[in-house]
């Protein structure tokens, strides 16, 4: 029972890491930018979700509102900053580094802006279903209906993404623009627009991660920083290029951490996430799903 329950808890936290990993991979694939601002975009969206919950007490309204806000913020970051930057610096080391540094700057800016608007104190909102674990007979396991909800929501988000990417014209454009932007352009794909849509999808996924994780923790301007890092670890495990890889990478990380927390030591859990990050990069930089540096769908 303990084994099974740890697995479920890992799955639930892994689902959230997957969403963050997915957001990072979407941006990385489409624009080759490691987006540190993703944590900032997600926190801003989560505060917007918090605003909706505190006014209406309706989690089910807050989630889609935060998702849309996250998507709009993502698109805005691309159009206002990344596109402009790519036009101004076209080659050389600055062209590769500048966007990454800009996202780091933006992370700081969003956090302090959020702090100015809502204050730096901890906020909280309740989950729409109970956070108390399921009870079987006399045993109560840590896995709760809310954890189940997290897993279901993530599966739905992933399924929608997978249908969009594999079955729609937009998805084909997104993949073509990510893999070979120049050939995509020559075939008529509006690559700039499609990239912005990629940023919007990423922003939406990050926002969902933020709204889902917050009832288990609390909300403050930097409460999603650890999630960003764990999202990176998940994305790296999955090979950075693949959406499926990001999903699997996040879940593998979540389950791994849950087992270390449960069976080894609480203080070892997060250091081991970083050890995994470094080991994957040293041993198999293309990730567990990566093959000869190739990119999966």
């Amino acid at each position, binding site marked *: 029972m303990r084994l099974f329950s740890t697995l479920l808890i890992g799955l639930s936290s892994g689902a959230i890491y997957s969403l963050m990993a997915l957001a990072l991979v979407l941006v990385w694939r489409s624009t080759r930018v490691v987006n540190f601002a993703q944590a900032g975009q997600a926190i801003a969206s989560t505060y917007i979700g918090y605003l909706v919950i505190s006014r209406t007490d309706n989690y089910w309204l807050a989630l889609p509102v935060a998702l849309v806000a996250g998507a709009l913020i993502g698109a805005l970051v691309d159009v206002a900053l990344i596109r402009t930057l790519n036009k101004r610096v076209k080659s050389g080391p600055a062209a590769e580094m500048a966007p990454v540094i800009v996202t780091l700057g933006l992370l700081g800016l969003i956090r302090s802006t959020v702090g100015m608007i809502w204050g730096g104190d901890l906020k909280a909102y309740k989950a729409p279903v109970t956070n108390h674990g399921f009870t079987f007979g006399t045993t109560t396991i840590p896995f709760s209906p809310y954890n189940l909800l997290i897993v279901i929501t993530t599966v739905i988000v992933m399924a929608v993404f997978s249908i969009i990417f594999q079955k729609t*014209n937009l998805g084909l454009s997104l993949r*073509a623009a990510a*893999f070979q932007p*120049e050939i995509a352009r*020559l075939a*008529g794909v*509006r690559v700039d627009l499609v990239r912005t849509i990629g940023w919007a999808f990423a922003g939406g996924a990050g926002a969902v991660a933020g709204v889902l994780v917050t009832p288990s923790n609390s909300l403050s301007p930097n409460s999603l920083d650890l999630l960003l890092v764990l999202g990176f670890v998940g994305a790296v495990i999955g090979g950075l290029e693949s959406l499926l890889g990001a999903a699997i990478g996040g879940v593998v990380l979540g389950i791994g951490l849950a087992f270390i927390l449960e069976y080894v030591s609480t203080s070892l859990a997060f250091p081991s996430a970083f050890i995994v990050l470094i080991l994957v990069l040293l041993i198999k930089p293309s990730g567990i799903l990566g093959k000869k540096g*190739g990119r999966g769908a």
Partner: protein
Amino acid sequence: MSLIIENLTVRHGAITAIDSLSFRVNERELAAVIGANGAGKTTLLRTLSGLNEPIGGSVTWHGESILHTKPEDLVRRGILHVSDGKTVIPELSVKENLALGGLWRKDKKDVVVATDEVIDLFPRLGERLTQSADTLSGGERQMLAIGRALISRPKLLLLDEPSLGLAPLIIDQIFQTLDSLRHKLGLTVVLVEQNAMSALGIADTGIIINLGKLVTVGKSNDLKSDPNLRAAYLGY
């Protein structure tokens, strides 16, 4: 109704890749641009399709400027560039690569018709629709790249070295197909080639360039038989 290039100049940093180049290609004509490596052939095509920005000169197609326009907008005006080397998206299937050619088009019925035509023309692509484009041979990739362009119903086709890296037999096939296609569809074609003999074999006009400058323009038959040009530029 033609492609008119006047005093076109393109720079890559300090290097002048195209140096006040002027020539014209009439509608329904096939012009072969011949020159050695580094003559500026690829830069010329990349400028015509909107990938490179010129610093001077003008290019008009059907009387309207096509400079300073995004490649994806030129595609919508019927200007299709089949670039050299990685002409297909290896991560996508053959079917998906073909589909890209019709994604932006509003007339979805005609996209279906055009796709069927391409598969009739290149049955090998039809047999490999679900395979990843990565698994295709060089010749099949070239067919796929041309096929994708055809699905966009091009009026002006810009072809960069379709013979690159292909076996002589396949080169002959590709050139024969091109020749019959452009007559059948009434295409205007700018064909850039190092393989001067094959290119002039199907071209109406030959344009010889060297170090970004025009050397000569002439009927391809005249160029083929000019002994000086043959020795200096045509390499046979």
